[in-house]
């Protein structure tokens, strides 16, 4: 009997180990980022990354938690309330909550400065709207900023923590959008340092130095496996920063954007990033299909952009991450 019990116990132990390994593996698949112990300070370059995703379900390899936060962020009309709603989860270590808390803190800070502050003074709604009109900025955008962010001006947001600290935590936890956002910030910061080095003038964002040994390419490489269209958009956006001497960077940028648009990113005239980009260009209001805006930007290079986008898509579908040129 003893001889038979030992293999039985052994099998139970093996089965438990396998189950634990599968559990751990599943957890890692959701956020494949390595532990990147780095703390980053705020970057006034101001990548608020308010890119709404119309078809959140297109995110193929991410968990429902991520989609839930993404949708809630896109639909929220009061970031102050939403911030307090997700704060406990962020404190408990939820990387999605940490990332979206970081995103809304940075967005409200930048938006309030743009629309409801002037020469360091806070503006009322009426004053802000008048100031927007003076600068040919959208009244609707100003109204929206007030609705979502005015409580950050009226209250002390310190209890919510800093955008940079939450972003660092989310990046360390392998949240793909956090990884992509951090990579963009590092690349922009490196560029600003090079400008300072070239001109001899001090870098006005020197206090925002991001102290990290993390290679932004590695962050993007990890993030792309999420197949999140926002990550594709970020990769497109930093093409000229990744390789400033590449004369083909413009085609690559638009190709990645086209892939992002085709895979669910909101690229309509109503998308916040399109509104930001268009500012006072009335022609932007005419785009209504996901491809239209990219086609408008591509002009004569549209066939090349489409071809490059097909190549990128094929590699993404095949999981050939190392062949994506990141």
């Amino acid at each position: 009997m003893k001889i038979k019990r030992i293999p039985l116990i052994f099998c139970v132990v093996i089965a438990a180990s396998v189950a634990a390994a599968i559990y751990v593996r599943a957890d890692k698949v959701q956020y494949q980022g390595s532990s990147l112990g780095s703390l980053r300070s705020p970057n006034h370059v101001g990548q608020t990354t308010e890119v709404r995703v119309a078809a959140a379900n297109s995110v193929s390899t991410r968990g429902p938690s991520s989609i839930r936060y993404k949708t809630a962020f896109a639909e929220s009309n009061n970031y102050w309330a939403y911030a307090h709603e997700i704060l406990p989860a962020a404190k408990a270590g939820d990387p999605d909550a940490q990332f979206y808390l970081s995103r809304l803190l940075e967005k409200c800070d930048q938006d309030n400065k743009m629309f409801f502050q002037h020469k360091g003074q806070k503006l009322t709604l009426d004053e802000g709207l008048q100031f927007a009109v003076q600068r040919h900025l959208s009244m609707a955008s100003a109204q929206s900023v007030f609705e979502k962010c005015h409580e950050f001006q009226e209250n002390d947001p310190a209890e919510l923590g800093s955008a940079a600290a939450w972003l660092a935590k989310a990046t360390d936890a392998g949240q793909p959008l956090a990884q992509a956002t951090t990579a963009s910030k590092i690349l922009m910061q490196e560029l600003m340092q090079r400008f300072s080095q070239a001109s001899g003038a001090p870098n006005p964002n020197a206090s925002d130095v991001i102290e990290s040994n993390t290679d932004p390419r590695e962050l993007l490489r990890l993030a792309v496996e999420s197949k999140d269209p926002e990550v594709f958009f970020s990769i497109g956006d930093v093409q000229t920063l990744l390789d400033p001497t590449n004369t083909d960077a413009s085609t690559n940028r638009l190709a990645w954007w086209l892939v992002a648009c085709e895979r669910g990113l909101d690229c309509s005239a109503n998308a916040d990033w399109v509104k930001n980009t268009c500012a006072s260009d009335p022609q932007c209001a005419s785009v209504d299909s996901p491809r239209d805006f990219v086609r408008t930007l591509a002009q004569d290079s549209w066939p090349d952009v489409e071809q490059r986008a097909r190549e990128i898509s094929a590699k993404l579908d095949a999981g050939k991450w190392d062949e994506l040129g990141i």
Partner: protein
Amino acid sequence: MKVTGYMYTSPYVQYFVVQSVTPIDGTGNSISGESESAQELFYNTFDQSLFGANRSIPTAVNEPDSYAASFINSNDEEVVPGIGYALILMGINQGSIPTGTVITVTFSDGTTAQYVKASPTATYQWTWNGTAHNKKGQLIDRAGGLIQNPNTAGLGSGVVTAPGFNPGGVDWNWVLNNLNECYVTVTADVSGESIDLGGFTIPC
């Protein structure tokens, strides 16, 4: 590039004899020890600083007065939307400009500043990169204060020739050694009439 050498002058010829050439950054530090790719990146940035997005068509934007009349003591909530508006007037959608591109913004008082394109997702689509000049071309900070030349390693030297200066018919020249600054006066002789175009001080 830091070029050292001396001026060879004789009654018949005059030329500069190069003794060394060293690539340096804006503060005078050598970058010759950097890797080839790092140097290429630096030169690319430097090129952009000088010429903007494209050497053939340098992107220069005139900031509308209604947004900001001077860079000095300006705020980016005024300057940045003004850049977008000016680009629209030029027929350029700022969305077509890649992130990281540099443009030179000229203000109506003659001050200029360089701005870098930020991400389309950013509220502030343009970010000042720290470089600005007053109307005299001197490097300034946001408050208009002069930024001293950071590259002061070595003092200026050279030879100034004054052909025909001496009524005796022999060219006359003088040598400058180890000077911090040179004051340059510009005079144009047009049809025998001399016109004073003013003067300025530069690091030698």
